[in-house]
């Protein structure tokens, strides 16, 4: 323990000085494991998050919407890819991360266990779910691990397009027919609370928070980020002339923030534990694509090996 002390001091000093930790730098094992957990969970969320929206690509209501949605879902695959690559710099393979996702050992954002039931859900997901993700990711652009911070900078550029396309869907529905407005309101009613849950438990109940803040893996607390998201979203909802499903939501002049009601944490933990509509479907979908693609990946590897051998012989 004691012979690590100078390295640890040095490491903490670098973090305190706002320097980035790079893959070749010394780091405490707990820092590395903590990052692997958080980054792979983030990568899995990008990939599993393709499913609820992907569900609507085939039946998007116009050609324009189909194209926008497909390119959004494609971006999420790209985010998954950057994040897996960034996580690999910590000494874990993509195959290993994949199998941890499929075995349930590794988590993904629990919000994707909710079903996307109508076209308005595509709007609500882009607006609220990507919106919440952005608040978190903007803060992570300054995270202490270099490859993670750089991945976040790249990802944030695309995320703002995601939120805009989602909000734009909501605007069109809100300006549309009675049925369209109802569809939009129903989607907000179902996605609002889960979006707030995306920021995680209250700071006082969050197991990993304190150490993560000290190491600057996290830069802002769950509750601060959640507040920021609520504040920005209330105004956007007013423009739509739709409502957020929270009777306790009101401006607090003193705090200069919106107050809002208590989250149903029981629901949050229930869904994480497996009691959401889609927990099984999401993993099943992932496993089946992976298994059906096994022969393709094997063939690509076999071909590359043959080619290398032929080169050697020649």
């Amino acid at each position: 323990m004691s012979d690590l002390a100078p390295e640890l001091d040095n490491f903490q000093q670098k973090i305190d000085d706002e320097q980035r930790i790079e893959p070749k730098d010394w780091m405490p094992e707990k820092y590395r494991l903590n990052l692997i957990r958080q980054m792979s969970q983030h990568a899995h969320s990008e990939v599993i998050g393709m499913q609820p929206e992907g569900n609507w690509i085939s039946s998007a209501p116009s050609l324009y919407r189909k194209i926008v949605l497909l390119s959004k879902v494609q971006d999420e695959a790209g985010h998954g890819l950057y994040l897996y690559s960034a996580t690999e710099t910590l000494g874990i393979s993509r195959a290993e991360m994949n199998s941890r996702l499929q075995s349930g050992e590794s988590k993904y954002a629990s919000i994707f266990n909710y079903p996307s039931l109508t076209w308005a859900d595509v709007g609500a997901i882009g607006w609220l779910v990507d919106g919440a993700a952005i608040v978190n990711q903007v803060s992570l652009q300054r995270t202490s691990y270099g490859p993670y911070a750089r991945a976040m900078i790249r990802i944030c550029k695309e995320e703002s397009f995601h939120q805009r396309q989602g909000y734009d869907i909501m605007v069109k529905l809100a300006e549309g027919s009675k049925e369209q407005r109802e569809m939009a309101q129903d989607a907000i009613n179902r996605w609002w609370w889960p979006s707030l849950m995306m920021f995680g438990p209250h700071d006082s109940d969050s197991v990993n928070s304190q150490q993560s803040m000290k190491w600057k893996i996290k830069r802002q607390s769950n509750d601060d980020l959640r507040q920021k998201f609520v504040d920005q979203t209330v105004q956007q909802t007013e423009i739509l002339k739709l409502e957020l499903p929270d009777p306790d939501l009101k401006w607090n002049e003193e705090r200069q923030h919106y107050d809002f009601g208590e989250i149903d944490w029981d629901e949050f933990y229930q869904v994480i534990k497996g009691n959401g509509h889609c927990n099984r479907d999401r993993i099943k979908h992932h496993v089946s694509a992976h298994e059906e693609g096994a022969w393709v990946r094997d063939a690509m590897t076999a071909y590359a090996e043959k080619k290398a051998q032929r080169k050697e012989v020649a």
Partner: protein
Amino acid sequence: MTEPSNLSTYVLRLADDAMVLGQRISEWTSNSPNLEEDIANSNVALDYLGRARMLYAYAATMLNTTEDELAFMRDARQYTNLLMHELPKGDYAFSTVRQFFIDSFDVLYFEQLVNSSDAQLAAIAAKTLKECRYHVRRSRDLMVRLGDGTEESHTRMQTALNELWGYRHELFMDDELETELQQQGIAITRTDLQQAWDAAINDCLAEATLSIPETDWTVTGGRAGVHSEHLGHMLDDMQCLHRSYPGVTW
């Protein structure tokens, strides 16, 4: 809607080809063998859907309607895509062989169509050609890697080849309408492309260690709206939401 002309009918045919294949390729999104392939498939699907949109929009100006009306409000019997484009995505071998057949054809086709006397079509063709050249590089490469990969991949590729073989004839058939448009310098003579296409396919199959199917067969009917049973189901899914809320915007 205005009465269709030869030109609007022709443009609609090309639009339908791009639409149904784009829809099929997009089914790979979140279902591909790995993330790299997933991204590439979405990319190709986006190119096709973008092409469909340009062509529908052009047809819509001639027919005095909208792109969405043409894509979402016509039934399977009114769709005039060539059959190969609408077939279910199958396994990765099937989608790969189909894509290579169509990419190889499209490069030849749009290389000619850029010279169309119809300026709008020529402009769409120029944009499309760039995409097709990229697509065929990818699908040809996949043909070789999967054809000459493992025993299983080889078998799957040969099976896909056999299952698609008879649909290729339709790519090279000129009917009266297209012949008339060819005489005006607007459309392309499909028959003329067959030799170059055969050569490109043979060349690739040899490298991929695959063989030309022993039995040939011919199924046609797409241009006349006589489709596989699959197209109707695909359109049900694609058009249902749009049709459920008539007259609204999205």
